[in-house]
Protein backbone atom coordinates (compact mmCIF):
# COMPACT_ATOMS: atom_id res chain seq x y z
CA UNK A 1 0.00 0.00 0.00
CA UNK A 2 2.89 2.30 -0.65
CA UNK A 3 0.87 3.83 -3.44
CA UNK A 4 -1.94 4.46 -1.02
CA UNK A 5 0.31 6.49 1.19
CA UNK A 6 1.79 8.47 -1.65
CA UNK A 7 -1.67 9.07 -2.97
CA UNK A 8 -2.92 10.12 0.43
CA UNK A 9 -0.23 12.74 0.41
CA UNK A 10 -1.46 13.90 -2.99
CA UNK A 11 -4.96 14.49 -1.72
CA UNK A 12 -6.25 17.99 -1.64
CA UNK A 13 -8.05 18.61 1.59
CA UNK A 14 -10.77 20.93 0.46
CA UNK A 15 -13.56 19.63 -1.71
CA UNK A 16 -15.41 22.28 -3.64
CA UNK A 17 -18.90 22.00 -5.09
CA UNK A 18 -17.45 22.86 -8.48
CA UNK A 19 -14.67 20.27 -8.57
CA UNK A 20 -16.96 17.59 -7.12
CA UNK A 21 -19.77 18.64 -9.45
CA UNK A 22 -17.41 18.30 -12.42
CA UNK A 23 -16.45 14.80 -11.27
CA UNK A 24 -20.13 13.84 -11.09
CA UNK A 25 -20.76 15.47 -14.47
CA UNK A 26 -17.93 13.39 -15.88
CA UNK A 27 -19.55 10.31 -14.44
CA UNK A 28 -22.81 10.99 -16.27
CA UNK A 29 -21.02 11.63 -19.55
CA UNK A 30 -19.13 8.34 -19.14
CA UNK A 31 -22.44 6.58 -18.55
CA UNK A 32 -23.83 7.98 -21.78
CA UNK A 33 -20.72 6.94 -23.65
CA UNK A 34 -20.99 3.44 -22.21
CA UNK A 35 -24.68 3.09 -23.10
CA UNK A 36 -25.66 5.68 -25.72
CA UNK A 37 -28.84 3.79 -26.64
CA UNK A 38 -30.98 5.39 -23.97
CA UNK A 39 -30.05 8.90 -25.04
CA UNK A 40 -30.57 8.15 -28.72
CA UNK A 41 -33.99 6.71 -27.91
CA UNK A 42 -35.10 9.77 -25.93
CA UNK A 43 -33.91 12.05 -28.73
CA UNK A 44 -35.69 10.03 -31.39
CA UNK A 45 -39.01 10.37 -29.60
CA UNK A 46 -39.79 14.02 -30.45
CA UNK A 47 -38.67 13.47 -34.05
CA UNK A 48 -41.08 10.56 -34.36
CA UNK A 49 -43.79 12.74 -32.88
CA UNK A 50 -42.97 15.55 -35.28
CA UNK A 51 -43.34 13.32 -38.29
CA UNK A 52 -46.41 11.56 -36.92
CA UNK A 53 -48.31 14.61 -35.65
CA UNK A 54 -47.04 16.79 -38.45
CA UNK A 55 -48.22 14.58 -41.28
CA UNK A 56 -51.08 12.57 -39.73
CA UNK A 57 -52.79 15.26 -37.66
CA UNK A 58 -51.39 18.17 -39.64
CA UNK A 59 -53.66 17.49 -42.57
CA UNK A 60 -56.73 17.41 -40.33
CA UNK A 61 -55.78 20.44 -38.27
CA UNK A 62 -56.69 23.58 -40.15
CA UNK A 63 -54.73 26.48 -38.71
CA UNK A 64 -55.53 29.84 -40.23
CA UNK A 65 -52.49 31.47 -41.76
CA UNK A 66 -50.04 28.95 -40.37
CA UNK A 67 -48.42 25.73 -41.29
CA UNK A 68 -49.03 23.16 -38.48
CA UNK A 69 -45.54 21.68 -38.69
CA UNK A 70 -43.98 25.11 -38.17
CA UNK A 71 -46.24 25.47 -35.13
CA UNK A 72 -45.33 22.01 -33.86
CA UNK A 73 -41.51 22.26 -33.92
CA UNK A 74 -41.25 24.96 -31.22
CA UNK A 75 -43.86 23.03 -29.22
CA UNK A 76 -41.76 19.88 -29.38
CA UNK A 77 -38.70 21.86 -28.34
CA UNK A 78 -40.67 23.13 -25.35
CA UNK A 79 -41.88 19.62 -24.50
CA UNK A 80 -38.29 18.39 -24.74
CA UNK A 81 -37.25 21.11 -22.32
CA UNK A 82 -39.97 20.00 -19.91
CA UNK A 83 -38.75 16.44 -20.14
CA UNK A 84 -36.10 17.25 -17.54
CA UNK A 85 -38.71 16.18 -15.01
CA UNK A 86 -38.71 12.65 -16.35
CA UNK A 87 -34.99 12.20 -16.89
CA UNK A 88 -34.03 13.91 -13.63
CA UNK A 89 -36.48 11.82 -11.66
CA UNK A 90 -35.39 8.57 -13.23
CA UNK A 91 -31.69 9.26 -12.75
CA UNK A 92 -31.78 10.14 -9.08
CA UNK A 93 -34.29 7.39 -8.24
CA UNK A 94 -32.02 4.91 -9.99
CA UNK A 95 -28.96 6.13 -8.10
CA UNK A 96 -30.80 5.70 -4.79
CA UNK A 97 -32.16 2.33 -5.80
CA UNK A 98 -28.86 0.89 -6.96
CA UNK A 99 -26.90 2.05 -3.94
CA UNK A 100 -24.37 4.37 -5.59
CA UNK A 101 -26.08 7.27 -3.78
CA UNK A 102 -25.04 5.66 -0.49
CA UNK A 103 -21.44 5.74 -1.65
CA UNK A 104 -21.69 9.43 -2.53
CA UNK A 105 -23.30 10.17 0.79
CA UNK A 106 -20.47 8.63 2.79
CA UNK A 107 -17.80 10.59 0.91
CA UNK A 108 -16.54 13.90 2.26
CA UNK A 109 -17.78 15.69 -0.83
CA UNK A 110 -19.95 18.73 -1.35
CA UNK A 111 -23.63 17.98 -0.77
CA UNK A 112 -24.54 20.05 -3.82
CA UNK A 113 -22.26 18.16 -6.19
CA UNK A 114 -24.43 15.13 -6.94
CA UNK A 115 -27.61 16.99 -7.99
CA UNK A 116 -25.55 19.75 -9.63
CA UNK A 117 -23.43 17.32 -11.64
CA UNK A 118 -26.53 15.42 -12.67
CA UNK A 119 -28.48 18.47 -13.82
CA UNK A 120 -25.45 19.96 -15.55
CA UNK A 121 -24.89 16.74 -17.49
CA UNK A 122 -28.55 16.73 -18.43
CA UNK A 123 -28.25 20.30 -19.69
CA UNK A 124 -25.27 19.41 -21.85
CA UNK A 125 -26.90 16.35 -23.39
CA UNK A 126 -30.10 18.30 -24.03
CA UNK A 127 -28.19 21.04 -25.82
CA UNK A 128 -26.64 18.47 -28.13
CA UNK A 129 -29.77 16.32 -28.29
CA UNK A 130 -31.92 19.18 -29.60
CA UNK A 131 -29.81 19.46 -32.74
CA UNK A 132 -31.33 16.48 -34.63
CA UNK A 133 -34.86 17.69 -33.82
CA UNK A 134 -34.00 21.13 -35.14
CA UNK A 135 -32.50 19.67 -38.33
CA UNK A 136 -35.57 17.52 -38.99
CA UNK A 137 -37.73 20.53 -38.15
CA UNK A 138 -35.93 22.58 -40.79
CA UNK A 139 -36.35 19.72 -43.24
CA UNK A 140 -40.13 19.65 -42.79
CA UNK A 141 -40.52 23.35 -43.35
CA UNK A 142 -40.01 25.08 -40.00
CA UNK A 143 -37.82 28.22 -40.14
CA UNK A 144 -36.24 30.59 -37.69
CA UNK A 145 -37.96 33.72 -38.86
CA UNK A 146 -36.76 36.20 -36.24
CA UNK A 147 -33.37 37.80 -35.68
CA UNK A 148 -30.30 35.83 -34.59
CA UNK A 149 -30.14 37.35 -31.13
CA UNK A 150 -33.79 36.52 -30.45
CA UNK A 151 -33.17 32.97 -31.69
CA UNK A 152 -30.16 32.65 -29.43
CA UNK A 153 -32.34 33.87 -26.60
CA UNK A 154 -34.84 31.18 -27.54
CA UNK A 155 -32.26 28.43 -27.21
CA UNK A 156 -31.01 29.93 -23.96
CA UNK A 157 -34.52 29.99 -22.56
CA UNK A 158 -35.14 26.38 -23.61
CA UNK A 159 -32.00 25.30 -21.78
CA UNK A 160 -32.82 27.34 -18.70
CA UNK A 161 -36.27 25.76 -18.55
CA UNK A 162 -34.75 22.31 -19.02
CA UNK A 163 -32.29 22.98 -16.20
CA UNK A 164 -35.14 24.04 -13.91
CA UNK A 165 -37.34 21.04 -14.71
CA UNK A 166 -34.45 18.67 -14.23
CA UNK A 167 -33.92 19.99 -10.67
CA UNK A 168 -37.60 19.35 -10.01
CA UNK A 169 -37.16 15.85 -11.41
CA UNK A 170 -34.05 15.32 -9.33
CA UNK A 171 -35.98 16.15 -6.17
CA UNK A 172 -38.87 13.87 -7.14
CA UNK A 173 -36.47 11.00 -7.77
CA UNK A 174 -34.87 11.46 -4.35
CA UNK A 175 -38.37 11.25 -2.92
CA UNK A 176 -39.36 8.15 -4.85
CA UNK A 177 -36.06 6.28 -4.53
CA UNK A 178 -37.35 3.42 -6.63
CA UNK A 179 -36.25 2.86 -10.19
CA UNK A 180 -39.40 1.13 -11.46
CA UNK A 181 -41.77 3.59 -9.79
CA UNK A 182 -39.83 6.52 -11.22
CA UNK A 183 -39.96 4.92 -14.66
CA UNK A 184 -43.73 4.48 -14.43
CA UNK A 185 -44.34 7.99 -13.20
CA UNK A 186 -41.91 9.32 -15.78
CA UNK A 187 -43.87 7.83 -18.66
CA UNK A 188 -47.00 9.42 -17.20
CA UNK A 189 -45.43 12.87 -17.62
CA UNK A 190 -46.12 12.68 -21.37
CA UNK A 191 -49.53 14.05 -20.45
CA UNK A 192 -48.07 17.40 -19.34
CA UNK A 193 -47.36 18.83 -22.83
CA UNK A 194 -50.73 17.49 -23.99
CA UNK A 195 -52.33 19.90 -21.51
CA UNK A 196 -50.47 22.85 -22.97
CA UNK A 197 -50.07 24.77 -26.20
CA UNK A 198 -47.10 22.60 -27.22
CA UNK A 199 -49.01 20.50 -29.77
CA UNK A 200 -52.26 22.42 -30.21
CA UNK A 201 -53.42 26.03 -29.93
CA UNK A 202 -55.23 26.48 -26.61
CA UNK A 203 -57.62 29.24 -27.80
CA UNK A 204 -60.38 26.83 -28.69
CA UNK A 205 -60.19 24.69 -25.54
CA UNK A 206 -63.26 24.70 -23.27
CA UNK A 207 -63.19 26.95 -20.16
CA UNK A 208 -61.38 25.18 -17.33
CA UNK A 209 -59.14 23.18 -19.63
CA UNK A 210 -58.07 26.36 -21.34
CA UNK A 211 -57.17 27.98 -18.02
CA UNK A 212 -55.15 24.93 -16.97
CA UNK A 213 -53.37 24.83 -20.31
CA UNK A 214 -52.55 28.54 -20.28
CA UNK A 215 -51.09 28.35 -16.80
CA UNK A 216 -49.12 25.24 -17.68
CA UNK A 217 -45.45 26.37 -17.74
CA UNK A 218 -44.97 24.36 -20.93
CA UNK A 219 -47.44 26.71 -22.67
CA UNK A 220 -45.33 29.70 -21.71
CA UNK A 221 -42.21 27.88 -22.90
CA UNK A 222 -43.85 26.95 -26.21
CA UNK A 223 -45.19 30.45 -26.79
CA UNK A 224 -41.83 31.97 -25.90
CA UNK A 225 -40.08 29.69 -28.37
CA UNK A 226 -42.55 30.60 -31.14
CA UNK A 227 -42.15 34.25 -30.24
CA UNK A 228 -38.34 34.28 -30.15
CA UNK A 229 -38.00 32.21 -33.32
CA UNK A 230 -40.47 34.55 -35.01
CA UNK A 231 -42.99 31.80 -35.77
CA UNK A 232 -46.02 33.26 -34.01
CA UNK A 233 -46.79 36.11 -31.66
CA UNK A 234 -48.24 35.23 -28.26
CA UNK A 235 -52.00 35.59 -27.98
CA UNK A 236 -52.71 38.71 -25.95
CA UNK A 237 -55.93 37.51 -24.32
CA UNK A 238 -54.32 34.42 -22.75
CA UNK A 239 -53.35 34.11 -19.07
CA UNK A 240 -50.38 36.24 -18.04
CA UNK A 241 -47.54 33.67 -18.45
CA UNK A 242 -48.86 32.68 -21.88
CA UNK A 243 -49.46 36.26 -22.97
CA UNK A 244 -45.99 37.35 -21.83
CA UNK A 245 -44.24 34.08 -22.57
CA UNK A 246 -40.59 35.17 -22.25
CA UNK A 247 -41.12 36.82 -18.89
CA UNK A 248 -43.48 34.01 -17.96
CA UNK A 249 -40.93 31.30 -18.75
CA UNK A 250 -38.20 33.20 -16.92
CA UNK A 251 -40.52 33.47 -13.91
CA UNK A 252 -41.51 29.79 -14.00
CA UNK A 253 -37.86 28.73 -14.33
CA UNK A 254 -36.74 31.00 -11.52
CA UNK A 255 -39.56 29.75 -9.30
CA UNK A 256 -38.71 26.10 -10.00
CA UNK A 257 -35.02 26.71 -9.30
CA UNK A 258 -35.63 28.72 -6.13
CA UNK A 259 -37.84 25.99 -4.73
CA UNK A 260 -36.28 22.79 -5.97
CA UNK A 261 -32.55 23.47 -5.85
CA UNK A 262 -32.57 23.80 -2.04
CA UNK A 263 -35.13 21.01 -1.65
CA UNK A 264 -33.12 18.59 -3.79
CA UNK A 265 -29.84 19.47 -2.08
CA UNK A 266 -31.38 19.06 1.35
CA UNK A 267 -33.10 15.83 0.40
CA UNK A 268 -29.83 14.47 -0.93
CA UNK A 269 -27.92 15.50 2.17
CA UNK A 270 -30.42 13.86 4.47
CA UNK A 271 -30.86 10.64 2.59
CA UNK A 272 -34.02 8.69 2.31
CA UNK A 273 -35.81 9.30 5.56
Amino acid at each position, binding site marked *: *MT*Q*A*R*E*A*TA*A*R*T*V*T*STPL*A*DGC*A*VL*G*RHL*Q*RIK*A*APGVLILTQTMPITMLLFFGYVFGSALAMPGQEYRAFLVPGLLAATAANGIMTGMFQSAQDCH*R*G*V*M*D*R*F*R*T*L*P*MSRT*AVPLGQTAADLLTTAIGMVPLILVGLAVGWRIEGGPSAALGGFGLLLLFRFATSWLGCWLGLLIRNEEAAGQLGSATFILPLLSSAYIPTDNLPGLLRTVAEWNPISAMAAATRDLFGNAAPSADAAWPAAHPVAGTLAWSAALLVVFVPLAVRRHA*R*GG*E
Partner: protein
Amino acid sequence: MTTTYAVLSEGLEKRYGDVHALRGLDLAVAEGAVCGVLGPNGAGKTTAVRILTTLTAPDGGSARVAGHDVVREAGAVRAAIGVTGQSASVDDELSGRQNLRLFGRLLGFRGEAVRRHADALLERFELTEAADRPARTYSGGMRRRLDLAAGLLTRPQVLFLDEPSTGLDPHSRNQIWAAVRELAGRGTTVLLTTQYLEEADQLADDIVLIDRGRAAQRGSPAELKARIGSYAEVVVAHASALVPAAAVLDRLTGAEPVLDHERRTVGAVATDTTLTLPRIVRELDAAGVPLIDASLRPPTLDEVFLRLTDRGDGRTSPPLKEATA
Protein backbone atom coordinates in the same frame (compact mmCIF):
# COMPACT_ATOMS: atom_id res chain seq x y z
CA MET B 1 -3.68 6.49 30.01
CA THR B 2 -7.35 6.92 29.24
CA THR B 3 -8.77 5.04 26.32
CA THR B 4 -9.98 7.13 23.45
CA TYR B 5 -12.78 5.64 21.46
CA ALA B 6 -12.93 5.83 17.69
CA VAL B 7 -16.53 4.71 17.79
CA LEU B 8 -18.77 5.45 20.72
CA SER B 9 -22.51 5.14 20.69
CA GLU B 10 -24.95 5.51 23.51
CA GLY B 11 -28.52 4.33 23.50
CA LEU B 12 -28.96 4.33 19.73
CA GLU B 13 -32.59 3.97 18.75
CA LYS B 14 -34.04 3.44 15.31
CA ARG B 15 -37.55 2.57 14.25
CA TYR B 16 -38.83 1.70 10.82
CA GLY B 17 -42.58 1.89 11.25
CA ASP B 18 -43.46 -0.96 13.57
CA VAL B 19 -39.99 -2.46 13.45
CA HIS B 20 -37.79 -1.43 16.32
CA ALA B 21 -34.46 -1.99 14.58
CA LEU B 22 -32.25 -0.57 17.35
CA ARG B 23 -33.32 -0.39 20.99
CA GLY B 24 -30.60 1.38 22.86
CA LEU B 25 -27.43 0.12 21.23
CA ASP B 26 -24.23 0.98 23.07
CA LEU B 27 -20.94 0.47 21.26
CA ALA B 28 -17.43 1.43 22.23
CA VAL B 29 -14.49 0.69 19.98
CA ALA B 30 -11.09 1.78 21.19
CA GLU B 31 -8.85 3.61 18.76
CA GLY B 32 -6.89 1.16 16.65
CA ALA B 33 -9.00 -1.84 17.65
CA VAL B 34 -10.85 -4.21 15.39
CA CYS B 35 -14.38 -4.73 16.60
CA GLY B 36 -16.52 -7.53 15.26
CA VAL B 37 -20.26 -7.01 15.45
CA LEU B 38 -22.10 -10.29 15.34
CA GLY B 39 -25.77 -10.87 15.18
CA PRO B 40 -28.44 -12.92 13.46
CA ASN B 41 -30.42 -11.60 10.47
CA GLY B 42 -32.39 -8.54 11.41
CA ALA B 43 -30.42 -7.91 14.60
CA GLY B 44 -29.74 -4.34 13.54
CA LYS B 45 -26.14 -4.57 12.32
CA THR B 46 -26.69 -2.75 9.05
CA THR B 47 -28.87 -0.15 10.73
CA ALA B 48 -26.08 0.53 13.23
CA VAL B 49 -23.47 0.83 10.48
CA ARG B 50 -25.71 3.16 8.48
CA ILE B 51 -26.15 5.45 11.45
CA LEU B 52 -22.44 5.45 12.25
CA THR B 53 -21.55 6.24 8.63
CA THR B 54 -24.00 9.20 8.51
CA LEU B 55 -26.34 7.51 6.03
CA THR B 56 -29.28 7.30 8.40
CA ALA B 57 -30.25 9.57 11.26
CA PRO B 58 -30.94 7.86 14.60
CA ASP B 59 -34.31 8.37 16.30
CA GLY B 60 -32.64 8.50 19.68
CA GLY B 61 -29.29 8.25 21.42
CA SER B 62 -26.02 9.62 20.11
CA ALA B 63 -22.89 8.44 18.41
CA ARG B 64 -19.44 9.80 17.83
CA VAL B 65 -17.03 8.54 15.21
CA ALA B 66 -13.42 9.71 15.24
CA GLY B 67 -14.49 12.22 17.87
CA HIS B 68 -17.26 13.78 15.76
CA ASP B 69 -20.99 13.58 16.27
CA VAL B 70 -22.55 11.59 13.45
CA VAL B 71 -25.52 13.93 13.17
CA ARG B 72 -24.15 17.39 13.88
CA GLU B 73 -20.67 16.90 12.41
CA ALA B 74 -21.48 14.50 9.60
CA GLY B 75 -18.98 16.14 7.26
CA ALA B 76 -16.08 15.61 9.65
CA VAL B 77 -17.16 12.01 10.19
CA ARG B 78 -17.22 11.40 6.43
CA ALA B 79 -13.72 12.80 6.10
CA ALA B 80 -12.50 10.25 8.64
CA ILE B 81 -14.17 7.06 7.49
CA GLY B 82 -14.08 4.41 4.80
CA VAL B 83 -17.22 2.42 4.17
CA THR B 84 -18.20 -0.76 2.44
CA GLY B 85 -21.87 -1.40 2.98
CA GLN B 86 -23.76 -4.64 2.83
CA SER B 87 -25.12 -4.03 -0.65
CA ALA B 88 -23.04 -2.80 -3.54
CA SER B 89 -22.66 0.94 -3.87
CA VAL B 90 -20.91 1.42 -7.18
CA ASP B 91 -22.17 2.68 -10.52
CA ASP B 92 -23.21 -0.39 -12.52
CA GLU B 93 -22.84 1.31 -15.87
CA LEU B 94 -19.27 2.45 -15.29
CA SER B 95 -16.28 0.16 -15.38
CA GLY B 96 -14.39 -0.76 -12.23
CA ARG B 97 -11.61 1.63 -13.17
CA GLN B 98 -14.02 4.49 -13.86
CA ASN B 99 -15.75 3.87 -10.54
CA LEU B 100 -12.54 3.98 -8.54
CA ARG B 101 -11.30 7.07 -10.37
CA LEU B 102 -14.61 8.83 -9.77
CA PHE B 103 -14.62 8.08 -6.06
CA GLY B 104 -10.93 8.95 -5.89
CA ARG B 105 -11.65 12.37 -7.38
CA LEU B 106 -14.48 12.93 -4.97
CA LEU B 107 -12.10 12.05 -2.15
CA GLY B 108 -9.81 14.84 -3.29
CA PHE B 109 -7.19 12.98 -5.33
CA ARG B 110 -6.14 14.72 -8.52
CA GLY B 111 -4.56 13.93 -11.85
CA GLU B 112 -1.94 11.23 -11.98
CA ALA B 113 -2.52 10.30 -8.33
CA VAL B 114 -6.11 9.23 -9.11
CA ARG B 115 -5.04 6.97 -11.94
CA ARG B 116 -2.14 5.36 -10.11
CA HIS B 117 -4.19 4.83 -6.99
CA ALA B 118 -7.16 3.29 -8.80
CA ASP B 119 -4.88 0.98 -10.76
CA ALA B 120 -3.08 -0.13 -7.62
CA LEU B 121 -6.36 -1.06 -5.96
CA LEU B 122 -7.59 -2.89 -9.05
CA GLU B 123 -4.37 -4.85 -9.04
CA ARG B 124 -4.62 -5.58 -5.36
CA PHE B 125 -8.18 -6.90 -5.59
CA GLU B 126 -7.39 -8.83 -8.79
CA LEU B 127 -9.74 -6.81 -10.94
CA THR B 128 -7.20 -5.57 -13.48
CA GLU B 129 -8.47 -7.91 -16.18
CA ALA B 130 -12.07 -6.78 -15.73
CA ALA B 131 -11.13 -3.18 -15.01
CA ASP B 132 -12.61 -1.76 -18.20
CA ARG B 133 -15.84 -3.71 -18.30
CA PRO B 134 -19.05 -2.19 -16.90
CA ALA B 135 -19.49 -3.23 -13.28
CA ARG B 136 -22.89 -4.71 -14.11
CA THR B 137 -21.09 -7.52 -15.93
CA TYR B 138 -19.11 -8.44 -12.80
CA SER B 139 -19.82 -11.54 -10.78
CA GLY B 140 -21.13 -11.04 -7.26
CA GLY B 141 -17.71 -11.57 -5.74
CA MET B 142 -16.01 -9.19 -8.18
CA ARG B 143 -18.54 -6.48 -7.44
CA ARG B 144 -17.98 -7.05 -3.74
CA ARG B 145 -14.24 -6.66 -4.23
CA LEU B 146 -14.76 -3.46 -6.21
CA ASP B 147 -16.91 -2.12 -3.40
CA LEU B 148 -14.24 -3.01 -0.87
CA ALA B 149 -11.60 -1.31 -3.00
CA ALA B 150 -13.77 1.81 -3.07
CA GLY B 151 -13.90 1.73 0.73
CA LEU B 152 -10.10 1.57 0.87
CA LEU B 153 -9.31 4.50 -1.43
CA THR B 154 -8.06 6.41 1.55
CA ARG B 155 -6.38 5.06 4.62
CA PRO B 156 -9.33 5.96 6.83
CA GLN B 157 -9.19 6.59 10.54
CA VAL B 158 -12.18 4.33 10.97
CA LEU B 159 -13.18 1.66 8.49
CA PHE B 160 -16.70 0.22 8.45
CA LEU B 161 -17.28 -3.09 6.74
CA ASP B 162 -20.78 -4.54 6.68
CA GLU B 163 -20.45 -8.27 6.09
CA PRO B 164 -17.30 -7.85 4.00
CA SER B 165 -16.81 -11.47 3.03
CA THR B 166 -20.39 -12.46 2.29
CA GLY B 167 -20.43 -14.03 -1.15
CA LEU B 168 -16.66 -14.23 -1.48
CA ASP B 169 -14.66 -17.37 -2.17
CA PRO B 170 -12.01 -18.37 0.41
CA HIS B 171 -9.22 -16.79 -1.61
CA SER B 172 -10.95 -13.41 -1.85
CA ARG B 173 -11.93 -13.65 1.78
CA ASN B 174 -8.30 -14.09 2.73
CA GLN B 175 -7.44 -11.01 0.69
CA ILE B 176 -9.97 -8.99 2.64
CA TRP B 177 -8.69 -10.32 5.89
CA ALA B 178 -5.14 -9.41 4.92
CA ALA B 179 -6.26 -5.90 3.99
CA VAL B 180 -8.05 -5.48 7.32
CA ARG B 181 -5.04 -6.73 9.27
CA GLU B 182 -2.73 -4.43 7.36
CA LEU B 183 -4.89 -1.38 7.98
CA ALA B 184 -5.35 -2.29 11.62
CA GLY B 185 -1.58 -2.68 11.88
CA ARG B 186 -1.24 0.89 10.67
CA GLY B 187 -3.62 2.19 13.27
CA THR B 188 -6.96 2.19 11.49
CA THR B 189 -9.90 1.33 13.69
CA VAL B 190 -12.13 -1.26 12.08
CA LEU B 191 -15.74 -2.04 12.79
CA LEU B 192 -16.94 -5.03 10.85
CA THR B 193 -20.17 -6.93 10.99
CA THR B 194 -20.24 -10.53 10.10
CA GLN B 195 -22.23 -13.71 10.18
CA TYR B 196 -19.06 -15.75 9.94
CA LEU B 197 -17.94 -16.30 13.44
CA GLU B 198 -14.62 -17.53 12.26
CA GLU B 199 -14.12 -14.12 10.72
CA ALA B 200 -14.69 -12.31 14.00
CA ASP B 201 -12.50 -14.83 15.76
CA GLN B 202 -9.71 -14.28 13.21
CA LEU B 203 -9.84 -10.51 13.02
CA ALA B 204 -11.49 -8.95 16.01
CA ASP B 205 -9.94 -7.81 19.26
CA ASP B 206 -13.41 -7.32 20.62
CA ILE B 207 -16.71 -8.84 19.74
CA VAL B 208 -20.12 -7.39 20.32
CA LEU B 209 -23.03 -9.73 19.95
CA ILE B 210 -26.14 -7.86 19.08
CA ASP B 211 -29.59 -9.29 19.20
CA ARG B 212 -32.89 -7.54 18.53
CA GLY B 213 -31.25 -4.12 18.40
CA ARG B 214 -29.25 -4.36 21.60
CA ALA B 215 -25.78 -5.48 22.60
CA ALA B 216 -26.34 -8.88 24.17
CA GLN B 217 -22.74 -9.75 25.00
CA ARG B 218 -19.35 -8.19 24.57
CA GLY B 219 -15.77 -9.19 25.14
CA SER B 220 -12.71 -10.57 23.42
CA PRO B 221 -13.20 -13.80 21.49
CA ALA B 222 -11.39 -15.65 24.32
CA GLU B 223 -13.54 -14.03 27.00
CA LEU B 224 -16.73 -14.91 25.22
CA LYS B 225 -15.59 -18.46 24.85
CA ALA B 226 -14.59 -18.63 28.52
CA ARG B 227 -17.92 -17.20 29.54
CA ILE B 228 -19.83 -19.92 27.82
CA GLY B 229 -17.58 -22.73 29.11
CA SER B 230 -16.57 -25.81 27.19
CA TYR B 231 -18.39 -28.18 24.97
CA ALA B 232 -18.50 -31.84 25.97
CA GLU B 233 -19.22 -34.30 23.19
CA VAL B 234 -19.23 -38.08 23.31
CA VAL B 235 -19.66 -40.71 20.63
CA VAL B 236 -21.39 -43.93 21.59
CA ALA B 237 -21.25 -47.39 19.99
CA HIS B 238 -24.95 -47.80 19.23
CA ALA B 239 -28.01 -45.61 19.09
CA SER B 240 -29.69 -47.18 22.11
CA ALA B 241 -26.86 -45.80 24.29
CA LEU B 242 -27.67 -42.21 23.36
CA VAL B 243 -30.35 -41.67 25.98
CA PRO B 244 -28.39 -43.04 28.95
CA ALA B 245 -25.35 -41.01 27.80
CA ALA B 246 -27.51 -37.89 27.61
CA ALA B 247 -28.77 -38.50 31.15
CA VAL B 248 -25.18 -38.61 32.44
CA LEU B 249 -24.15 -35.46 30.57
CA ASP B 250 -27.27 -33.68 31.78
CA ARG B 251 -26.32 -34.54 35.38
CA LEU B 252 -22.69 -33.45 34.90
CA THR B 253 -23.23 -30.20 33.02
CA GLY B 254 -26.67 -29.08 34.08
CA ALA B 255 -27.29 -28.09 30.46
CA GLU B 256 -29.71 -29.81 28.17
CA PRO B 257 -27.77 -32.24 25.94
CA VAL B 258 -28.11 -32.29 22.18
CA LEU B 259 -28.50 -35.72 20.57
CA ASP B 260 -27.37 -36.50 17.06
CA HIS B 261 -28.73 -39.89 16.03
CA GLU B 262 -26.92 -40.07 12.75
CA ARG B 263 -23.47 -39.45 14.15
CA ARG B 264 -24.44 -41.15 17.46
CA THR B 265 -23.16 -38.22 19.47
CA VAL B 266 -24.38 -36.43 22.54
CA GLY B 267 -23.09 -32.94 23.29
CA ALA B 268 -23.64 -30.45 26.06
CA VAL B 269 -22.26 -27.10 27.08
CA ALA B 270 -20.33 -27.26 30.32
CA THR B 271 -20.14 -24.02 32.25
CA ASP B 272 -18.62 -25.75 35.29
CA THR B 273 -14.90 -25.14 34.86
CA THR B 274 -13.99 -27.99 37.27
CA LEU B 275 -15.45 -30.60 34.96
CA THR B 276 -12.71 -32.71 33.39
CA LEU B 277 -12.62 -35.19 30.56
CA PRO B 278 -11.55 -38.16 32.76
CA ARG B 279 -14.53 -37.54 35.00
CA ILE B 280 -16.91 -37.55 32.07
CA VAL B 281 -15.41 -40.80 30.82
CA ARG B 282 -15.51 -42.41 34.29
CA GLU B 283 -19.14 -41.48 34.90
CA LEU B 284 -20.25 -42.69 31.49
CA ASP B 285 -18.36 -45.93 31.93
CA ALA B 286 -19.89 -46.42 35.37
CA ALA B 287 -23.33 -45.96 33.80
CA GLY B 288 -22.51 -48.72 31.32
CA VAL B 289 -22.42 -46.49 28.25
CA PRO B 290 -20.37 -48.05 25.42
CA LEU B 291 -18.13 -45.10 24.71
CA ILE B 292 -16.17 -44.73 21.47
CA ASP B 293 -14.89 -41.17 21.71
CA ALA B 294 -15.16 -38.24 24.07
CA SER B 295 -13.97 -34.65 23.95
CA LEU B 296 -14.14 -31.53 26.04
CA ARG B 297 -13.14 -28.48 24.05
CA PRO B 298 -13.66 -24.74 23.99
CA PRO B 299 -16.83 -23.93 22.07
CA THR B 300 -16.61 -22.61 18.58
CA LEU B 301 -17.92 -19.11 18.11
CA ASP B 302 -20.86 -20.64 16.31
CA GLU B 303 -21.87 -22.34 19.50
CA VAL B 304 -21.29 -19.14 21.46
CA PHE B 305 -23.43 -17.32 18.98
CA LEU B 306 -26.31 -19.74 19.06
CA ARG B 307 -26.24 -19.92 22.81
CA LEU B 308 -25.79 -16.30 23.75
CA THR B 309 -28.51 -15.09 21.47
CA ASP B 310 -30.90 -17.95 22.18
CA ARG B 311 -31.37 -18.57 18.54
CA GLY B 312 -30.87 -21.52 16.30
CA ASP B 313 -32.30 -24.53 18.10
CA GLY B 314 -34.95 -22.74 20.10
CA ARG B 315 -33.61 -23.84 23.48
CA THR B 316 -33.23 -21.31 26.20
CA SER B 317 -29.88 -21.20 27.84
CA PRO B 318 -29.30 -20.54 31.51
CA PRO B 319 -28.59 -16.91 32.35
CA LEU B 320 -25.00 -16.03 31.74
CA LYS B 321 -22.84 -14.12 34.11
CA GLU B 322 -21.98 -10.69 32.75
CA ALA B 323 -18.27 -10.14 32.63
CA THR B 324 -17.23 -7.87 35.45
CA ALA B 325 -15.60 -4.82 34.02
